Protein backbone atom coordinates (compact mmCIF):
# COMPACT_ATOMS: atom_id res chain seq x y z
CA UNK A 1 0.00 0.00 0.00
CA UNK A 2 3.05 2.24 -0.36
CA UNK A 3 1.43 3.91 -3.32
CA UNK A 4 -1.34 5.34 -1.17
CA UNK A 5 1.20 7.01 1.06
CA UNK A 6 3.01 8.26 -2.02
CA UNK A 7 -0.15 9.75 -3.43
CA UNK A 8 -1.51 11.41 -0.33
CA UNK A 9 1.78 13.05 0.43
CA UNK A 10 1.72 14.95 -2.88
CA UNK A 11 0.13 18.37 -2.99
CA UNK A 12 -2.78 17.23 -5.15
CA UNK A 13 -3.11 14.13 -2.97
CA UNK A 14 -3.43 16.24 0.14
CA UNK A 15 -5.88 18.57 -1.54
CA UNK A 16 -7.93 15.60 -2.71
CA UNK A 17 -8.09 14.28 0.84
CA UNK A 18 -9.36 17.69 1.91
CA UNK A 19 -11.92 17.61 -0.87
CA UNK A 20 -13.15 14.10 -0.14
CA UNK A 21 -13.40 14.61 3.60
CA UNK A 22 -14.92 18.03 2.92
CA UNK A 23 -17.55 16.39 0.76
CA UNK A 24 -18.35 13.98 3.59
CA UNK A 25 -18.63 16.80 6.06
CA UNK A 26 -20.87 18.81 3.80
CA UNK A 27 -23.16 15.84 3.33
CA UNK A 28 -23.30 15.51 7.09
CA UNK A 29 -23.97 19.21 7.40
CA UNK A 30 -26.84 18.88 4.97
CA UNK A 31 -28.50 16.11 6.98
CA UNK A 32 -27.82 17.95 10.20
CA UNK A 33 -29.55 20.94 8.66
CA UNK A 34 -32.56 18.93 7.63
CA UNK A 35 -32.72 17.43 11.12
CA UNK A 36 -32.39 20.76 12.83
CA UNK A 37 -35.10 22.21 10.63
CA UNK A 38 -37.51 20.08 12.64
CA UNK A 39 -37.08 22.78 15.23
CA UNK A 40 -39.24 25.07 13.15
CA UNK A 41 -42.08 22.55 13.26
CA UNK A 42 -42.39 22.96 16.97
CA UNK A 43 -41.16 21.44 20.20
CA UNK A 44 -42.86 18.07 19.90
CA UNK A 45 -41.74 17.35 16.39
CA UNK A 46 -38.22 18.30 17.31
CA UNK A 47 -38.09 16.10 20.40
CA UNK A 48 -39.65 13.22 18.53
CA UNK A 49 -37.02 13.55 15.83
CA UNK A 50 -34.28 13.43 18.48
CA UNK A 51 -35.78 10.42 20.18
CA UNK A 52 -36.25 8.54 16.94
CA UNK A 53 -32.69 9.27 15.97
CA UNK A 54 -31.35 8.00 19.27
CA UNK A 55 -33.28 4.82 18.93
CA UNK A 56 -30.87 3.91 16.12
CA UNK A 57 -28.26 3.67 18.81
CA UNK A 58 -25.68 1.47 17.09
CA UNK A 59 -25.94 3.19 13.71
CA UNK A 60 -25.54 6.57 15.35
CA UNK A 61 -22.39 5.39 17.13
CA UNK A 62 -20.88 4.11 13.87
CA UNK A 63 -21.87 7.29 12.15
CA UNK A 64 -20.34 9.41 14.88
CA UNK A 65 -17.03 7.56 14.74
CA UNK A 66 -16.97 7.94 10.96
CA UNK A 67 -17.70 11.60 11.31
CA UNK A 68 -14.99 12.01 13.90
CA UNK A 69 -12.48 10.37 11.56
CA UNK A 70 -13.53 12.66 8.72
CA UNK A 71 -13.10 15.67 10.95
CA UNK A 72 -9.74 14.55 12.24
CA UNK A 73 -8.38 13.85 8.75
CA UNK A 74 -9.77 17.13 7.44
CA UNK A 75 -8.18 19.04 10.31
CA UNK A 76 -4.89 17.17 10.12
CA UNK A 77 -4.45 17.80 6.41
CA UNK A 78 -5.60 21.38 6.73
CA UNK A 79 -2.96 22.01 9.36
CA UNK A 80 -0.34 20.31 7.23
CA UNK A 81 -1.23 22.38 4.17
CA UNK A 82 -1.40 25.56 6.21
CA UNK A 83 2.07 25.04 7.66
CA UNK A 84 3.52 24.09 4.25
CA UNK A 85 2.00 27.12 2.58
CA UNK A 86 3.37 29.41 5.25
CA UNK A 87 6.86 28.37 4.13
CA UNK A 88 6.25 28.69 0.42
CA UNK A 89 7.14 32.37 0.32
CA UNK A 90 9.76 33.12 2.98
CA UNK A 91 10.11 36.73 1.90
CA UNK A 92 6.70 38.39 1.71
CA UNK A 93 5.73 41.16 -0.67
CA UNK A 94 5.80 44.71 0.63
CA UNK A 95 2.71 45.43 -1.46
CA UNK A 96 0.37 42.69 -2.63
CA UNK A 97 -3.07 43.22 -4.03
CA UNK A 98 -5.78 40.63 -4.38
CA UNK A 99 -7.74 40.27 -7.57
CA UNK A 100 -9.89 37.15 -7.55
CA UNK A 101 -9.54 35.85 -4.00
CA UNK A 102 -12.79 35.96 -2.08
CA UNK A 103 -13.35 36.50 1.62
CA UNK A 104 -14.17 32.84 1.77
CA UNK A 105 -11.00 31.63 0.14
CA UNK A 106 -8.76 34.07 1.94
CA UNK A 107 -9.98 33.08 5.39
CA UNK A 108 -10.19 29.30 4.98
CA UNK A 109 -7.66 28.41 7.70
CA UNK A 110 -9.12 30.92 10.13
CA UNK A 111 -12.76 30.06 9.56
CA UNK A 112 -11.66 26.44 9.78
CA UNK A 113 -10.07 27.03 13.17
CA UNK A 114 -13.18 28.89 14.30
CA UNK A 115 -15.32 25.94 13.29
CA UNK A 116 -13.06 23.67 15.32
CA UNK A 117 -13.57 25.79 18.42
CA UNK A 118 -17.28 25.86 17.73
CA UNK A 119 -17.33 22.13 17.36
CA UNK A 120 -15.85 21.63 20.80
CA UNK A 121 -18.30 24.07 22.40
CA UNK A 122 -21.21 22.59 20.48
CA UNK A 123 -20.35 19.06 21.52
CA UNK A 124 -19.95 20.07 25.15
CA UNK A 125 -23.29 21.82 25.02
CA UNK A 126 -25.28 19.12 23.33
CA UNK A 127 -23.41 15.87 23.21
CA UNK A 128 -21.26 15.40 26.27
CA UNK A 129 -23.95 16.57 28.60
CA UNK A 130 -25.53 14.34 31.22
CA UNK A 131 -28.53 16.51 31.91
CA UNK A 132 -31.94 14.93 31.78
CA UNK A 133 -33.45 17.72 29.81
CA UNK A 134 -35.22 17.01 26.53
CA UNK A 135 -33.45 18.25 23.46
CA UNK A 136 -35.75 21.24 23.09
CA UNK A 137 -35.13 22.24 26.69
CA UNK A 138 -31.44 21.82 26.19
CA UNK A 139 -31.47 24.06 23.13
CA UNK A 140 -33.37 26.69 25.04
CA UNK A 141 -31.08 26.48 28.05
CA UNK A 142 -28.03 27.12 25.93
CA UNK A 143 -29.16 29.47 23.22
CA UNK A 144 -31.22 31.82 25.29
CA UNK A 145 -27.98 32.88 26.96
CA UNK A 146 -26.88 35.90 24.92
CA UNK A 147 -23.16 35.05 25.02
CA UNK A 148 -23.74 31.56 23.72
CA UNK A 149 -26.16 32.79 21.11
CA UNK A 150 -23.68 35.40 19.94
CA UNK A 151 -20.88 32.82 19.83
CA UNK A 152 -23.08 30.47 17.82
CA UNK A 153 -24.00 33.19 15.38
CA UNK A 154 -20.39 34.22 14.82
CA UNK A 155 -19.22 30.65 14.43
CA UNK A 156 -22.05 29.81 12.05
CA UNK A 157 -21.14 32.82 9.94
CA UNK A 158 -17.63 31.43 9.81
CA UNK A 159 -19.06 28.08 8.78
CA UNK A 160 -21.05 29.67 5.97
CA UNK A 161 -17.98 31.54 4.79
CA UNK A 162 -15.89 28.38 4.98
CA UNK A 163 -18.20 26.34 2.83
CA UNK A 164 -18.87 29.23 0.46
CA UNK A 165 -15.36 28.59 -0.82
CA UNK A 166 -15.23 24.97 0.24
CA UNK A 167 -18.00 23.61 -1.95
CA UNK A 168 -16.76 25.16 -5.17
CA UNK A 169 -13.18 24.44 -4.21
CA UNK A 170 -13.70 20.75 -3.60
CA UNK A 171 -15.28 20.43 -7.03
CA UNK A 172 -12.28 22.15 -8.60
CA UNK A 173 -9.89 19.93 -6.66
CA UNK A 174 -11.70 16.82 -7.77
CA UNK A 175 -11.49 18.06 -11.34
CA UNK A 176 -15.07 19.21 -11.79
CA UNK A 177 -14.81 22.31 -13.95
CA UNK A 178 -16.66 22.54 -17.22
CA UNK A 179 -17.54 25.90 -18.77
CA UNK A 180 -21.09 24.74 -19.45
CA UNK A 181 -21.80 24.09 -15.79
CA UNK A 182 -19.44 26.46 -14.04
CA UNK A 183 -21.99 29.24 -13.56
CA UNK A 184 -24.46 26.75 -12.15
CA UNK A 185 -21.82 25.23 -9.91
CA UNK A 186 -20.68 28.55 -8.56
CA UNK A 187 -24.14 29.93 -7.88
CA UNK A 188 -25.23 26.56 -6.50
CA UNK A 189 -22.31 26.54 -4.08
CA UNK A 190 -23.02 30.12 -3.06
CA UNK A 191 -26.76 29.51 -2.56
CA UNK A 192 -26.10 26.38 -0.56
CA UNK A 193 -23.72 28.11 1.79
CA UNK A 194 -26.12 31.01 2.25
CA UNK A 195 -28.99 28.60 2.92
CA UNK A 196 -26.96 26.59 5.41
CA UNK A 197 -25.80 29.71 7.17
CA UNK A 198 -29.25 31.29 7.20
CA UNK A 199 -31.11 28.27 8.52
CA UNK A 200 -28.58 27.45 11.23
CA UNK A 201 -28.29 31.06 12.35
CA UNK A 202 -32.05 31.40 12.50
CA UNK A 203 -32.06 29.01 15.49
CA UNK A 204 -29.97 31.11 17.94
CA UNK A 205 -31.70 34.22 16.62
CA UNK A 206 -35.11 32.78 17.42
CA UNK A 207 -33.88 31.58 20.78
CA UNK A 208 -32.65 35.03 21.53
CA UNK A 209 -35.53 37.17 20.32
CA UNK A 210 -38.62 34.92 20.30
CA UNK A 211 -39.48 34.24 23.89
CA UNK A 212 -41.88 31.41 23.08
CA UNK A 213 -39.27 29.53 21.12
CA UNK A 214 -39.63 25.79 21.67
CA UNK A 215 -42.18 26.26 24.36
Amino acid sequence: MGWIKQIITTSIGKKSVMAVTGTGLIIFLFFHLVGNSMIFLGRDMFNAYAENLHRLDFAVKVFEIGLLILFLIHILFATLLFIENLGSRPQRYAVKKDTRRTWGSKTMPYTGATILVFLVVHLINFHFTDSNLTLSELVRSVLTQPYYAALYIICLLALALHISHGIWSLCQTLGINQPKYNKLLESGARSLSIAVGAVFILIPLLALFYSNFLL
Partner: protein
Amino acid sequence: MKLINLIVKVWRQENETSSGSFQTLKSGPISTDMSFLEMLDVLNEKLAKVGKEPIAFDHDCREGICGMCGAVVNGHAHGPENETTLCQLHMRHFNDGDTLVIEPFRARAFKVVKDLVVDRSALDSIIAEGGYVSVNTGGAPDGNAVPIPQDTAEQALDASACIGCGACVAACPNASAMLFVGAKVSQYALLPQGQPESARRALDMVRKMDESGFGNCGNERECEAACPKGISIRNIARLNREFIKAAIISYEK
Protein backbone atom coordinates in the same frame (compact mmCIF):
# COMPACT_ATOMS: atom_id res chain seq x y z
CA MET B 1 2.16 62.02 -25.67
CA LYS B 2 2.34 63.27 -22.12
CA LEU B 3 5.16 63.46 -19.61
CA ILE B 4 4.71 62.18 -16.09
CA ASN B 5 6.97 62.07 -13.04
CA LEU B 6 6.99 59.05 -10.82
CA ILE B 7 8.51 57.92 -7.57
CA VAL B 8 9.99 54.49 -8.06
CA LYS B 9 10.56 52.24 -5.07
CA VAL B 10 12.51 49.33 -6.44
CA TRP B 11 13.94 46.25 -4.75
CA ARG B 12 17.72 46.17 -4.81
CA GLN B 13 19.58 43.04 -3.83
CA GLU B 14 23.24 42.43 -4.53
CA ASN B 15 23.06 38.67 -4.91
CA GLU B 16 21.27 35.51 -3.79
CA THR B 17 22.72 35.51 -0.29
CA SER B 18 22.60 39.17 0.58
CA SER B 19 19.51 40.74 2.08
CA GLY B 20 17.91 43.35 -0.09
CA SER B 21 16.04 46.56 0.51
CA PHE B 22 14.00 49.13 -1.36
CA GLN B 23 15.68 52.02 -3.10
CA THR B 24 13.62 55.10 -3.82
CA LEU B 25 14.35 56.92 -7.06
CA LYS B 26 12.79 59.83 -8.88
CA SER B 27 11.98 58.88 -12.42
CA GLY B 28 12.28 62.31 -13.97
CA PRO B 29 9.96 63.05 -16.90
CA ILE B 30 8.66 59.82 -18.43
CA SER B 31 6.75 59.71 -21.70
CA THR B 32 3.42 57.96 -21.38
CA ASP B 33 4.18 56.18 -24.66
CA MET B 34 7.05 54.30 -23.04
CA SER B 35 6.75 50.72 -22.02
CA PHE B 36 7.43 49.86 -18.41
CA LEU B 37 10.80 48.35 -19.29
CA GLU B 38 11.74 51.41 -21.32
CA MET B 39 11.03 53.46 -18.20
CA LEU B 40 13.49 51.20 -16.37
CA ASP B 41 15.97 51.64 -19.26
CA VAL B 42 15.76 55.41 -18.82
CA LEU B 43 16.29 55.07 -15.07
CA ASN B 44 19.25 52.79 -15.68
CA GLU B 45 20.89 55.20 -18.12
CA LYS B 46 20.57 57.87 -15.47
CA LEU B 47 22.04 55.62 -12.79
CA ALA B 48 24.93 54.59 -15.03
CA LYS B 49 25.78 58.19 -15.84
CA VAL B 50 26.27 59.04 -12.19
CA GLY B 51 28.40 55.96 -11.62
CA LYS B 52 25.71 53.90 -9.89
CA GLU B 53 24.84 50.37 -10.76
CA PRO B 54 21.77 49.96 -12.98
CA ILE B 55 18.79 47.91 -11.83
CA ALA B 56 19.15 44.34 -13.03
CA PHE B 57 15.97 42.96 -14.62
CA ASP B 58 15.30 40.10 -17.00
CA HIS B 59 13.83 40.86 -20.41
CA ASP B 60 14.34 39.74 -23.97
CA CYS B 61 11.72 39.80 -26.71
CA ARG B 62 9.79 42.82 -25.37
CA GLU B 63 6.72 41.72 -27.24
CA GLY B 64 5.15 39.60 -24.55
CA ILE B 65 5.98 36.11 -25.75
CA CYS B 66 9.38 34.98 -24.43
CA GLY B 67 8.34 35.03 -20.77
CA MET B 68 11.66 36.42 -19.61
CA CYS B 69 10.42 39.65 -18.00
CA GLY B 70 8.32 40.01 -14.92
CA ALA B 71 8.12 41.82 -11.62
CA VAL B 72 5.44 42.64 -9.12
CA VAL B 73 4.34 46.25 -9.63
CA ASN B 74 2.19 47.81 -6.92
CA GLY B 75 1.14 44.37 -5.76
CA HIS B 76 0.29 42.93 -9.18
CA ALA B 77 2.48 40.42 -11.03
CA HIS B 78 3.28 42.06 -14.42
CA GLY B 79 1.48 45.20 -13.23
CA PRO B 80 -2.19 46.10 -13.06
CA GLU B 81 -3.26 45.54 -16.70
CA ASN B 82 -5.07 42.33 -17.62
CA GLU B 83 -3.34 39.76 -19.82
CA THR B 84 -0.28 41.95 -20.24
CA THR B 85 3.36 41.13 -19.64
CA LEU B 86 5.54 43.73 -18.00
CA CYS B 87 7.19 44.58 -21.33
CA GLN B 88 3.79 45.29 -22.88
CA LEU B 89 2.62 47.44 -19.99
CA HIS B 90 2.72 51.08 -21.02
CA MET B 91 3.24 54.10 -18.85
CA ARG B 92 -0.01 55.70 -19.98
CA HIS B 93 -1.69 53.52 -17.37
CA PHE B 94 0.01 55.52 -14.63
CA ASN B 95 -0.53 59.08 -13.46
CA ASP B 96 1.77 61.93 -12.70
CA GLY B 97 3.03 61.68 -9.13
CA ASP B 98 2.26 57.95 -8.71
CA THR B 99 4.53 55.83 -6.58
CA LEU B 100 5.58 52.53 -8.16
CA VAL B 101 6.64 49.73 -5.86
CA ILE B 102 8.60 47.19 -7.91
CA GLU B 103 9.51 43.84 -6.39
CA PRO B 104 10.87 40.62 -7.84
CA PHE B 105 8.63 37.55 -8.23
CA ARG B 106 8.84 35.99 -4.79
CA ALA B 107 8.56 32.32 -3.93
CA ARG B 108 10.67 29.81 -2.07
CA ALA B 109 11.18 28.02 -5.40
CA PHE B 110 12.35 31.26 -7.11
CA LYS B 111 15.53 32.60 -5.51
CA VAL B 112 16.33 36.24 -6.15
CA VAL B 113 19.53 36.37 -8.19
CA LYS B 114 19.95 40.12 -8.23
CA ASP B 115 17.53 43.05 -7.91
CA LEU B 116 14.50 41.96 -9.97
CA VAL B 117 16.14 38.90 -11.53
CA VAL B 118 14.97 35.56 -10.17
CA ASP B 119 15.95 31.96 -10.80
CA ARG B 120 13.03 30.13 -12.41
CA SER B 121 14.92 26.97 -13.35
CA ALA B 122 12.51 24.98 -11.16
CA LEU B 123 9.97 25.37 -13.97
CA ASP B 124 12.38 23.80 -16.47
CA SER B 125 13.05 20.89 -14.17
CA ILE B 126 9.31 20.22 -13.95
CA ILE B 127 9.09 20.14 -17.76
CA ALA B 128 12.01 17.71 -17.87
CA GLU B 129 9.87 15.24 -15.92
CA GLY B 130 7.35 14.83 -18.70
CA GLY B 131 6.33 18.07 -20.37
CA TYR B 132 6.68 16.49 -23.80
CA VAL B 133 5.71 13.55 -25.96
CA SER B 134 8.49 10.96 -25.99
CA VAL B 135 8.93 10.71 -29.72
CA ASN B 136 12.31 10.62 -31.37
CA THR B 137 13.01 12.60 -34.52
CA GLY B 138 12.12 10.70 -37.67
CA GLY B 139 9.48 8.12 -38.35
CA ALA B 140 6.50 10.24 -37.35
CA PRO B 141 3.30 9.33 -39.20
CA ASP B 142 1.72 11.81 -41.60
CA GLY B 143 0.45 14.92 -39.85
CA ASN B 144 -3.10 14.18 -40.94
CA ALA B 145 -3.00 10.51 -39.96
CA VAL B 146 -4.77 11.22 -36.68
CA PRO B 147 -7.58 13.76 -36.98
CA ILE B 148 -7.90 16.08 -34.01
CA PRO B 149 -11.20 17.92 -33.51
CA GLN B 150 -10.80 21.63 -34.03
CA ASP B 151 -12.15 22.42 -30.61
CA THR B 152 -9.68 20.04 -28.97
CA ALA B 153 -6.78 21.61 -30.83
CA GLU B 154 -7.97 25.06 -29.79
CA GLN B 155 -8.25 24.06 -26.14
CA ALA B 156 -4.80 22.51 -26.28
CA LEU B 157 -3.50 25.76 -27.72
CA ASP B 158 -5.24 27.75 -24.98
CA ALA B 159 -3.20 25.72 -22.52
CA SER B 160 0.07 25.66 -24.41
CA ALA B 161 -0.02 29.45 -24.80
CA CYS B 162 1.84 29.48 -21.46
CA ILE B 163 5.04 31.49 -21.71
CA GLY B 164 6.57 30.11 -18.52
CA CYS B 165 7.06 33.53 -16.95
CA GLY B 166 6.16 32.39 -13.46
CA ALA B 167 3.60 35.15 -12.79
CA CYS B 168 1.13 32.49 -11.61
CA VAL B 169 3.57 31.46 -8.92
CA ALA B 170 4.32 35.06 -8.03
CA ALA B 171 0.65 35.95 -7.70
CA CYS B 172 -0.44 32.81 -5.84
CA PRO B 173 -0.87 33.37 -2.12
CA ASN B 174 0.81 30.00 -1.62
CA ALA B 175 3.40 30.35 -4.41
CA SER B 176 1.98 27.29 -6.11
CA ALA B 177 2.92 26.31 -9.66
CA MET B 178 -0.31 24.48 -10.40
CA LEU B 179 -1.36 26.71 -13.29
CA PHE B 180 2.00 26.21 -15.00
CA VAL B 181 1.92 22.45 -14.52
CA GLY B 182 -1.80 22.30 -15.26
CA ALA B 183 -1.32 24.07 -18.57
CA LYS B 184 1.38 21.67 -19.75
CA VAL B 185 -0.39 18.54 -18.55
CA SER B 186 -3.62 19.77 -20.13
CA GLN B 187 -2.06 20.33 -23.53
CA TYR B 188 -1.04 16.69 -23.74
CA ALA B 189 -4.09 15.35 -21.93
CA LEU B 190 -6.24 16.88 -24.64
CA LEU B 191 -4.25 15.68 -27.64
CA PRO B 192 -4.19 12.06 -28.78
CA GLN B 193 -0.39 12.20 -29.03
CA GLY B 194 -0.14 12.75 -25.29
CA GLN B 195 -2.25 9.79 -24.22
CA PRO B 196 0.27 6.96 -23.93
CA GLU B 197 2.28 8.80 -21.29
CA SER B 198 -0.51 10.67 -19.57
CA ALA B 199 -0.43 8.82 -16.24
CA ARG B 200 3.33 8.87 -15.89
CA ARG B 201 3.42 12.54 -16.91
CA ALA B 202 0.88 13.70 -14.31
CA LEU B 203 2.50 11.77 -11.49
CA ASP B 204 6.08 12.77 -12.29
CA MET B 205 5.44 16.43 -12.97
CA VAL B 206 3.42 16.86 -9.79
CA ARG B 207 6.06 15.06 -7.76
CA LYS B 208 8.76 17.32 -9.15
CA MET B 209 6.63 20.39 -8.54
CA ASP B 210 6.28 19.43 -4.87
CA GLU B 211 9.99 18.71 -4.50
CA SER B 212 10.89 22.09 -5.95
CA GLY B 213 9.38 23.96 -3.04
CA PHE B 214 6.20 25.36 -4.56
CA GLY B 215 3.20 25.69 -2.26
CA ASN B 216 -0.17 23.97 -2.48
CA CYS B 217 -3.01 25.20 -4.63
CA GLY B 218 -5.74 26.84 -2.58
CA ASN B 219 -8.11 27.44 -5.51
CA GLU B 220 -7.80 31.16 -4.94
CA ARG B 221 -7.72 32.04 -8.67
CA GLU B 222 -5.03 34.67 -8.33
CA CYS B 223 -2.93 32.78 -10.89
CA GLU B 224 -5.40 33.09 -13.75
CA ALA B 225 -5.90 36.77 -12.97
CA ALA B 226 -2.16 37.39 -13.24
CA CYS B 227 -1.52 35.15 -16.26
CA PRO B 228 -0.49 37.33 -19.20
CA LYS B 229 -1.86 34.69 -21.57
CA GLY B 230 -5.21 34.34 -19.82
CA ILE B 231 -4.78 30.65 -19.03
CA SER B 232 -7.80 29.40 -17.12
CA ILE B 233 -7.82 27.40 -13.89
CA ARG B 234 -9.87 24.92 -15.86
CA ASN B 235 -6.45 23.54 -16.66
CA ILE B 236 -5.76 23.02 -12.97
CA ALA B 237 -9.00 21.06 -12.67
CA ARG B 238 -7.86 18.97 -15.62
CA LEU B 239 -4.50 18.36 -13.96
CA ASN B 240 -6.30 17.28 -10.79
CA ARG B 241 -8.39 14.90 -12.85
CA GLU B 242 -5.38 13.51 -14.65
CA PHE B 243 -3.50 13.09 -11.42
CA ILE B 244 -6.33 11.37 -9.57
CA LYS B 245 -6.93 9.12 -12.57
CA ALA B 246 -3.26 8.25 -12.73
CA ALA B 247 -2.99 7.68 -9.00
CA ILE B 248 -6.06 5.52 -8.60
CA ILE B 249 -6.74 3.82 -11.91
CA SER B 250 -3.46 3.50 -13.78
CA TYR B 251 -0.79 0.91 -13.09
CA GLU B 252 1.83 3.62 -12.72
CA LYS B 253 3.19 4.38 -9.27
